[in-house]
Structure formats: C-alpha cells, structure tokens
C-alpha cells in the first residue's frame, strides 16, 4: 500500500497548543511519526539569568498556563534551600493547598479535553463546569484563576481565615459528588471504554526506558510519586494513596487521574483541618550565596525538576527547568506506531501534553 505523509500542526483544531507532527500512514494505520517542538519557545531559561531572583517569579509562573503554581513552588523551594531560609509551617501548608487545588483543576481540565477530542461532549461539559469550583476558590484566595502569584521566596503572600475555610469545605462537598459521578462514568460507560481501552499502551519497561513520570507512569503500574517518595512538609504529615493501574492505556490514565482528583480533595481537607497558626512567610535576602541545588516537586503531570546555580549575586547563574511533558512527548512515536488515524486524537490527549511547558 502507498505510504502517505500527513502533517498535523503546528496549527490544528485538535491541538490546543502549537506542536507539529508528521504522520506517515499506510491506509488507516500510522507507521511513523516525527515530532517538532519549539513553536512557543520563549527562552525562559536564558531570560532568568538576566533577571533577579524576585523578578524571576512572575516569569517562571508563565512556564505553564495550567500548573503555574507548582513551578514557582519548585523554584522558591530551591532558592530557599540555597539561601538557608526556613519557611514557616503555615506557609508550607498554604503552598500545598494551592498545589492540590491546582492538581484538581488540571486533571478536570484534562478530562474535558480528552472527552472533547474523542467526541464525548457530555463529560467535557461536566468536567469544565466542576473545574470552575476550584478555580473560583483559587481566585478568591489569590486574585488569579490560573496565574495565582501566591509564592514569594520565603513563603506565600496569601492567608486563609476560618470563615473562608468553612465556605471552601462546603464547596468541596459538591465537587466530591461530581468527581464520584465522573468516576462512575469512566468505570462503566461502554463508549468511553471502547474508545480508550487498548489505545496508546505503554509498558512498565517503556516507562523505565523513556524515564516517564507522573500519572502516565502510574497508569502503567509504575509506583512513583514525589509527594510520597520525597516527602517534605506538609506531605509527610498527610495521608493519601498513590494511585496506580496496571493497564497502561488511555483508559487507565483516565482512571488514575480522576482517582487522584479524589485523593487531592482528601488532601485539601486535611490541609485545611491541620493548618498551623503563625506567619506565612519570612523575609528573604536579595543576594543568594554561592551554591547549586536540585529542586523537585510532583506537578499534576509528574516530576518537575529545577536546577539552580547561584553565584552570590542577585541573579541566578543558571536555571534549568525540566517539565514532565518532555518525558511524555518522547513516548509518542512509540504510542502512535500501529494506531489508526481515528485513535491519534485519543493518544495525543491521553498523555496530557502541555506544549508551552515543554518549549519553555
């Protein structure tokens, strides 16, 4: 059969962000795919070297348009370690609260995108409606729906009073019911299962070879989660399950992410219940002593790693960012090989790509 090459992207209705694929197909079957990144490369790593540690926070917040808070958390965590700063417990708890709400918002957003791309608009509508609940809470706390500007070097700039906490908990009850409903759909809805089961399979061996992280790895039965494996306060004092599934297909990824949403809600409740008293931040010095540090966090998509080198000035000498999407992108040619054209949108959505993250 003749081979045909089909370009997908960088501008394409299927993709919410610019990414280019060259798919070589024989009939309906994808034989080969070539990936091209860089359409939203902003040179953030170099720009960070030209700005001070404080100026870098708003810039780093813009690495990702979905999980912006975890990036500044990882960055601030690194700078704090270099400066020898101890963040007050209340600051750490509020940081974690935002991280978990961000995970809920990111997972629900992804569930919507996946459903839309496979033609299941009902789940899309529900998921995005329910996501508004956490977005509203985050906006009340920080003033921003997606870019929250919560972190400062040394802590957070937001606080939570009791009345607000009570109001948040009431809304969590509503959200919890909705998440349970979504889970029911995913576990029993035959059209969804037909569309996602056996599609985009990654074996544990492939996960290991490609150094994959986050829900994609966990949905292939690889039990990794930095919140548990690299416990820092407050996660060492909170109870949660690391969700895994052995199937390794898009369906397993859906299940893992929605179950994780439930765990995150559980974590948010614990954080609010245990919220310690005291200040939320300490003052940081402008200059950071010479040193280097590797800072890691569990973002909604998996391990985020920042390497920061300081040279006793007010600007970093080097700041390296690796976002979890990089690890998912590299598996795509393997996942797409042998898939039919109709499965391409499901495979691409299934790994939860954030191209702006990968391009930086």
């Amino acid at each position: 059969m003749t081979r045909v090459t089909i370009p997908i992207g960088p501008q394409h209705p299927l993709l919410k962000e610019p990414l280019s694929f060259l798919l070589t197909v024989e009939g309906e079957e994808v034989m080969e795919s070539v990936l091209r990144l860089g359409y939203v490369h902003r040179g953030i790593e170099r720009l960070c070297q030209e700005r001070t540690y404080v100026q870098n926070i708003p810039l780093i917040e813009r690495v990702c348009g979905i999980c912006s808070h975890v990036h500044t958390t990882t960055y601030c965590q690194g700078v704090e370690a270099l400066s020898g700063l101890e963040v007050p417990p209340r600051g750490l708890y509020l940081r974690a609260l935002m991280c978990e709400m961000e995970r809920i918002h990111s997972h629900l957003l992804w569930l919507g995108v996946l459903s839309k791309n496979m033609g299941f608009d009902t789940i899309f509508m529900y998921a995005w409606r329910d996501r508004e609940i956490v977005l509203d809470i985050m906006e009340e706390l920080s003033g921003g729906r997606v870019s929250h500007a919560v972190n400062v070097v040394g802590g957070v700039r937001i606080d939570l009073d009791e009345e607000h906490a009570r109001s948040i908990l009431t809304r969590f009850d509503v959200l919890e019911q909705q998440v349970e409903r979504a889970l029911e759909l995913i576990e029993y809805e035959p059209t969804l299962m037909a569309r996602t089961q056996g599609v985009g399979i990654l074996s544990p061996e492939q996960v290991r070879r490609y150094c994959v992280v986050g829900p994609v790895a966990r949905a292939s039965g690889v039990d990794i989660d930095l919140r548990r494996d690299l416990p820092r306060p407050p996660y060492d004092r909170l109870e949660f399950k690391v969700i895994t599934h052995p199937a390794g297909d898009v369906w397993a990824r859906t299940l893992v992410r929605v179950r994780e949403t439930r765990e995150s809600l559980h974590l948010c409740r614990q954080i609010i219940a245990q919220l310690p008293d005291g200040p939320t931040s300490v003052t940081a010095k402008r200059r950071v002593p010479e040193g280097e540090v590797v800072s890691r966090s569990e973002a909604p998509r998996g391990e985020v790693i920042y390497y920061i080198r300081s040279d006793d000035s007010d600007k970093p000498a080097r700041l390296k960012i690796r976002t979890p999407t990089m690890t998912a992108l590299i598996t795509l040619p393997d996942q797409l090989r042998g898939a039919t054209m109709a499965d391409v949108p499901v495979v691409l959505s299934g790994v939860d790509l954030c191209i702006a993250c990968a391009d930086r």
Partner: protein
Amino acid sequence: MDVAAVVQALQAAFPDCDVAARAVSIDDTFVTLPVGALRTAIELLHERFDLYHLSTITGIDTGEAVEILYHFWDRRGLTLRIVLPYDALHVASVTDLIPGAAFYEREIIEMLDVMVEGHPDPRPMLLPDDWDEGAPLRKQTEAV
C-alpha cells in the same frame, strides 16, 4: 537507592572522581567524573543499582568551561557532572543506554553548541530553523 553505596562504587571504579561538597542539598549528591568515564558510570548505575531514571540533563557555560550534569533519581537524587574545556566541546551520547535522554541531549547540542557524539537524531528541537545568533546559553551569546 543507597546513595552512599553508589558513591562508594563510583569512587572505587573511578579513583579520580570528586564528590562535591559545594552543593546545597535538598536531596541530591553531586559526583564529578572524568569525561571519558561517563558511559561506563551509567552502565555501572544500571547494572549494580538498577538506577535508570534520568530526570534531565543540564548544560552550563560557567565562563571557564562547559559543565554537563546528569540528574538521576530513585527515591534519592544523584547528579553526575562532567566538565568540558572550550577546546573540546564534545561528549558521548547516552541515548542508546537511556532512550529518555534523546530530547535532553538535543537541547544541549543547540543551546550550548556541544557536540553529542553518536546521537541518533541531532536536529535542532526548540530553536527556529533559521536561527543564526549563536547558542543561546553560551556566555558569548548576548541576550536579546
């Protein structure tokens, strides 16, 4: 991963390696290796410690040399560092040992102008096709 055991094994295999004390640690241990020892060291990590997860590769132009850092992780962090002098900016690819390193190595090539020998696909990944203003992360390249 038992970091102390890994460091001991690396020191036994490469007597001139250096365990850095400069690093401020959240969790990582930094070990500087001779350039030629990199692949053997990674094979040792694979075989003896089952350490496969490469988080990323960082390249830094320090003004005196170019450092390449390989950040591994398995419940604890381990970073292998090699230092390349300006007159020998080439390093052996590790993509055949760790397929997940392919993108990180491509970044090193285009951002720091370091030759990664044996890389299966060394095309630019992030920069525009017609980029000719120098490697963005090198000191000599001015920020726009």
